[in-house]
């Protein structure tokens, strides 16, 4: 077998690299190298340089994503279609880089105060973002898996950053063990898929699976395993148990990073696989996604109602929001709906990222004074920190889907996609989602009531001093949340460039 493979290999030709298309990845990789090396020669009080440098690396990569979007071809394909830089990839790369930049802004003060391995922290953060940026471009089972590991392994270490704290240890061990378990399941599914079809290229997989008309048993198992593996990554019920414990034990900026960027990366892989590799497998993934979406929304919401800790509440809320993001995928295979389902997912990811990062930024700012994560500690926030109170209200209202904020438009797109499908699956999931939207408002409003109506529980009403970098993060996220809701035209333009059905080569 090996001899025949070698004979088939023939003359080796160096692949042509499109350096412009690879520029974001190259800048990130060079940045990782630079931060790691420079950190070795810094005095402890100069360590803030690593934070500033990481921010500039993210912005530099973002600039090249911008030039890629403006200059030249829309779609740049390398390695025989295994690594593609198209509009879909560019939007998501921009999302990951902006999210990474906001996390750096949120971290700089938190991590500096701890004086604990600042350089390594930013190196790991940059590495994880590099994995996510690669994930957006990957169109091959192997590059998807490499990207998945590149983004996950630094995240395991970051989750365990509070290592002197038993909760931090619990977070690290739980996230690592379950993450590795999920990777193994995904990899098993991929190996079965390769065994059956003999290819790892997603577009070839798409045509190989449909070639004989119907699914074989092995293919069904392979698709199911791959979906289950990524369901862990996006913490969809019933694969969500790690999320609240990890979110509570990790440093808060990392919690924001995991609940937004890491989750979005899982969705990106799931979406790419759904649309490119399993285009005609809707009979397999549709019921699967339906069950995952319905369970995630409902169970996430019911647990969120009972939480007294704001980080755990946001963790369950993010499980439930994950259900809403999955919702359009349940109808992705219906003729004529695929495109709007895809737009709905991407728009929801962008809006959710802005809103959730903002909510965590407020949590960090408030915890600087109260040193507590209890929801009751938000009592009277509007009285002594009016700006933070208003911002938290905006973010929570957006998460609940109240117009005219971004969350409303995201939910609108998701509902529109499933209703356009005009199938039983679509209508039933829309009804469940509508009920859950009402339930979710309850726990978001509980926090708002603390902020606006209660009194500060300890009577300490000294104002909160927000460091400038955290303030910048709040301004960016709040601006994005409002602009995406008030001017849905911008989202509409987003939608146009995410014309994935063309971009993914179907």
């Amino acid at each position, binding site marked *: *077998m090996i001899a025949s493979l070698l004979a088939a290999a023939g003359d*080796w030709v*160096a692949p042509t690299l499109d350096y412009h298309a690879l520029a974001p990845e190259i800048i990130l990789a060079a940045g990782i*190298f630079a931060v*790691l*090396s420079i950190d*070795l020669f810094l005095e402890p009080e100069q360590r803030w340089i690593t934070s500033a440098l990481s921010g500039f690396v993210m912005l530099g990569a973002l600039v090249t994503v911008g030039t890629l979007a403006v200059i030249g071809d829309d779609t740049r394909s390398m390695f025989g279609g295994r690594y593609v830089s198209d509009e879909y990839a560019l939007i998501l790369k921009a999302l990951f880089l902006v999210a990474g930049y906001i996390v750096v802004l949120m971290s700089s003060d938190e991590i500096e105060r701890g004086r604990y391995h600042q350089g390594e922290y930013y190196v790991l953060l940059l590495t994880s973002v590099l994995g996510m940026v690669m994930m957006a471009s990957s169109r091959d089972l192997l590059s998807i898996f490499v990207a998945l590991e590149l983004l996950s392994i630094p995240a395991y270490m970051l989750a365990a950053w509070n290592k002197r704290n038993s909760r931090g240890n619990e977070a690290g061990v739980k996230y690592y063990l379950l993450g590795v378990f999920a990777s193994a399941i995904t990899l098993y599914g991929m190996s079965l898929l390769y*065994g*059956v079809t*003999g290819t790892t290229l997603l577009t070839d997989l798409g045509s190989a699976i449909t070639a004989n008309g119907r699914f074989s048993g092995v293919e069904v198992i392979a698709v199911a395993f791959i979906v289950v593996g990524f369901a862990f990554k996006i913490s969809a019920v019933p694969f969500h148990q790690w999320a609240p414990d990890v979110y509570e034990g990790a440093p808060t900026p990392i919690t924001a990073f995991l609940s937004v960027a890491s989750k979005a990366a899982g969705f990106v892989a799931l979406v790419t696989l759904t649309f490119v590799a399993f285009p005609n497998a809707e009979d397999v993934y549709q019921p699967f996604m339906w069950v995952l979406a319905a369970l995630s929304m409902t169970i996430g919401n019911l647990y969120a109602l009972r939480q007294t800790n704001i980080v755990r509440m946001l963790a369950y809320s993010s499980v439930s929001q994950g259900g809403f993001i999955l919702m359009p995928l349940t109808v992705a295979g219906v003729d004529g709906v695929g495109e709007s389902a895809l737009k709905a997912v991407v728009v929801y990811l962008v809006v959710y990222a802005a809103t959730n990062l903002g909510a965590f930024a407020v949590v960090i700012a408030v915890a600087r004074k109260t040193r507590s994560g209890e929801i009751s500690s938000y009592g009277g926030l509007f009285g002594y920190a009016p700006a933070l109170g208003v911002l938290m209200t905006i973010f929570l209202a957006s998460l609940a889907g109240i117009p005219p904020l971004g969350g409303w438009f995201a939910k609108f797109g998701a509902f529109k996609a499933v209703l356009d499908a005009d199938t039983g699956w679509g209508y039933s999931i829309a009804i469940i989602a509508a009920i859950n939207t009402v339930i979710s408002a309850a726990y978001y409003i509980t926090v708002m009531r603390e902020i606006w109506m209660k009194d500060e529980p300890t009577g300490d009403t000294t104002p909160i001093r927000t460091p400038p970098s955290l303030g910048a993060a709040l301004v960016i996220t709040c601006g994005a949340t409002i602009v995406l809701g008030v001017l849905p035209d911008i989202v509409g333009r987003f939608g146009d460039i995410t014309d994935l059905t063309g971009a993914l080569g179907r």
Partner: protein
Amino acid sequence: MSQFLRDYLTVVWFGAIALVLGGLLLGVAALLRPNKPTAQKLIAYESGVDPVGDGWSQSQVRYYIFALLFVIFDIEAVFIFPWATQVERYGAFGLVVMLIFLILLLDGLAYAWKKGVLRWV
């Protein structure tokens, strides 16, 4: 069944025969041999000398960092040996790619060195 899966049937056969053969030899031996255990015979075999200490022993925790550093060179070898056999075909492109890989690995070693990992304390 596809040709690919049929190729794997060899592995299944190999495993099955190994199990049957091993079980058969041990089973026949168990039936034929006399069974007279003594205290001397039941001692764990350690190259002929009497075993000393417990079966579970601790090793220095510092070794694990050296083990991790060893992995750097191990992975380097895994990639370099196959690459070296084909280096002429890959030409300048392959040379540059491998150099980038080595520089990144060396950065890791330099980091460990500067952090004092190589010093035995």
